[in-house]
């Protein structure tokens, strides 16, 4: 932003202008405001994804940052979309569970396949968050040890106790990508 631009004009700009999010390769320009389809300053990213953009693959469970169900990948890091204000994500690149399949072939991400192959879920509510966290880990470190997987996934909770299968599923991909 230009030097010397006052806070007042910036605030005005925020109220009238829009923000740009790149989600799963698609660019979204969202107006800030209270009308339908607009983003309010107090909206969280999880709210925007699910309610405004209809990307309901991202789940919302505790809404307090404790369960990991709402995990998305933002600029390469797994983050909690319930703990982010959408207006503060202007210019960010975001991947959600909907964006993992191959855009050209439609083929599922190897992690998604592995979760199916290992039945790494029961009710499946935590699964998108589990997979997004695992994806960010493998992107950064393609062949983690089992302990590293456990550590990285320690913020994703599953009430059905699918954790054992989750680790097996992720390790199977980690070994393939190794």
């Amino acid at each position, binding site marked *: 932003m230009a030097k010397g631009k006052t*806070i007042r004009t910036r605030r005005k700009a925020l109220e009238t202008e829009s923000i740009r999010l790149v989600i799963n390769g698609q660019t979204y320009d969202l107006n800030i405001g209270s009308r339908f389809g607009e983003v309010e300053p107090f909206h969280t990213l999880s709210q925007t994804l699910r309610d405004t953009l209809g990307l309901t693959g991202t789940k919302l469970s505790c809404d307090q940052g404790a369960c990991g169900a709402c995990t998305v990948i933002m600029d390469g890091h797994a983050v909690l979309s319930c*703990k982010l204000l959408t207006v503060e994500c202007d210019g960010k690149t975001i991947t959600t569970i909907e964006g993992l399949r191959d855009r050209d072939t439609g083929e599922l991400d190897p992690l998604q396949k592995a979760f199916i192959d290992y039945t790494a879920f029961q009710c499946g509510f935590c699964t998108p968050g589990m997979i997004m966290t695992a994806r960010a880990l493998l992107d950064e470190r393609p062949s983690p040890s089992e302990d590293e997987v456990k550590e990285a996934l320690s913020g994703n909770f599953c009430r059905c106790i699918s954790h054992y299968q989750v680790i097996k599923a992720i390790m199977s991909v980690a070994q393939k990508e190794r």
Partner: protein
Amino acid sequence: MKSFTHYDVGTIEEAVKLLKNYKGKAKINAGGTDLLGALKQGSLRDYPEAIINIKDVKGLDAIKQDKAGLRIGALTKLADIVNSPIVKESYPVLADAAKSVATPLIRNMCTIGGNLAQDVRCWYYRYPQQIGGPITCLRKGGKICNALMGDNRYHSLFGAAPLETYPCSSGCPAHIDMPSYLAMVRAGDMMEAARRMLVFNPVPAITGRVCPIFCEPECNRSAFDEPVAIRCVERSVGDYILERASDFFAPPEHESGRTIAIVGSGPAGMSAAYYLRKAGHRVKVFEKMKEAGGMLLYSIPSYRLPKDVVRRQVRALEGMGVKFQVGVNVGKDVTLAELMRRFAAVFVAAGAWKERPLGIKGEKIALSGLAFLNRVNAGDTAIPGKKVAVVGGGNVAMDVARTLLRLGAEPVVLYRRTRDEMPAFRDELEKATEEGIEFQFLTLPTEAVKNNGSISVTCRRMKLGAPDASGRPQPVPIAGSEFIATFDALIKAIGEEPDTTLLPAEFSTRSSNTGSTARLGKNLFAGGDLVTGPSTVVQAIAAGREAAGLMESALKIGKPATSERGTERAFSEPSFVATARAGIPEASITERIKSLEIEDIRGLSPKDIEAEARRCFNCGCLAVGPSDIGVALVALDATIVTTRRTVGALDFFSTSATEATVLDPDEMITEIRVPRPADGAKQSFLKFTLREPVDFAIVSVASMISMKDGLCDEARIVLGAVAPSPIRAFAAEEMLKGKPTDETVAVLAAEAALAEAKPLGMNAYKAEIAKALIKRAILGQPAS
């Protein structure tokens, strides 16, 4: 989340400017992992009007190492600290502390500055609005810390973060530090309780009897059952002081060589005399009457304040070297101007003795209420008649009526408004009523005529009209309601005012008036009722103390005015006992109306006083400091740089019940500086939680131990989550010094660290966990 104005800022300066503009009503978002939860749950004391996003501020997220040590930008993510090779290599206690925070997902978002500034984790404080919150706890301006008597398994082992101002002290005109002396009373240390009392009040035996009690109505315990009977405890402390007067009223060690004159020996004069004499000045008090004591001796009747108490108080002051010269009428026997010439300073505290006239026909027939009390107090107990009309509704009217009753007369109180508007203390009014004194409300005498030895008083009935300047409804005469009542005597007690003829004419302008004290000339000061009009004993002693400070600072003859706070304290010792308020014994009505000398309210026994003092909550917040990083930073002896100052990690965390850190509303953390640890120092961070990860510490221990020739050279052992802020276990550190770090020493050090712990009802287990962690830290073992 409710709405707020949102700002993105590019620089810290912009953020600070906004914070300043919002005057505490804006919050910084440095990561959002704590803030957004608080906003969603509505758990903050006030929902912020604005959120200022600083996440895009550049240059504050670097970890740099130089010769001096480490510099970490405030916006550095905890994940980056966990993964930093520099931190892992040389500052493992910090890396481990960072890794212990919440989950990897949260560590990808939260920053070190945010971790240090996060809000407390008390679940009463954080009770969400979605399920019926918020709970207005002490931290949010409520009256009770719920953890005191409720669930406190996660709370402090080492006391509470004290309130900055206690409601009891704030209510008291003299700002007596009640929790501080009550703590000593319950500890059985009356000597120290007395010392703490005297810092604020030199005449507690007197105020403990006649104070209209400003403190008890403010007591937070009222929210639970009944207030602590503070006045009754004060009375006992006062009696204790008078019994050992020579210990407490000793001549000062150093004489200043200056002499100060005080005109008037009432409570304001006595109080000024005490504080000035204590500061080393010679003090000479001039008193018009035959005996020192002012209103305390000549106006307040013996059944409320035994003369003996006042006399012993005067003798106590004499014992410290205060000279009383009685029978000197300043203005007649000696001029004020002469006193101002002869003395370094003159304090006029002549009280409010001038009675207002009734303004009726036959005014001269009415006797003066104050003159009557004077006479009785001087020993002349003759009554002016059997049936006596007492005109007025204030404390003097009550004193006159109750005195008359005790001397065998039949007083009738005539008051032009109703009971509710009477300015007398409620307690006095209740006592007068239960003693059977007759009241004629809405009655205004208009004329008095002598009639064959009796007095015919023409009265008019009144009704209540619109409020007057005092806020009370104005009495309005009812036309044609006149009637005549016959009495043997008529006594007026409709209020007093200061007689300021003694003072220079400029007094009326009161240019440098500070409320209850005023500087009237170069070395002339006035205070007490003379300045304020009739008030109370405790207001007068506050004025006397204030005047002593004012005189010393104005004339540059002493140290700055005495500090308001009696003693320094870090954490207050919270206390909850279910005991009911002590019943304060009173003389029976039939017994007490027989004599002027029977004190109507009695004191309590020392045992009862201790029990009553135990009822003081010693109000404070029992929540523990929430930051894990902070505990490690204290062990590393780090400093925290803000937009305003550089502060040591230990001092950064506030010990106040309302703020978690020392940060001002418009102050921000910018950097954390960690000195390079000694080569080979063993560092450790151990944290016990109920479930890993995500949960907050039940206890954490950060330590750094340097060895020399196989023996401990220096140790820093810091405990987290056991007190309102991280605390150093100094006793354990001392224990380790010069010893090998073996099992025996580790066990002793762990015991020493927790020796001072004062567990609450449900958290004694935390002390055992803390000991286990300290032992493992010393032995270099993992937490589990």
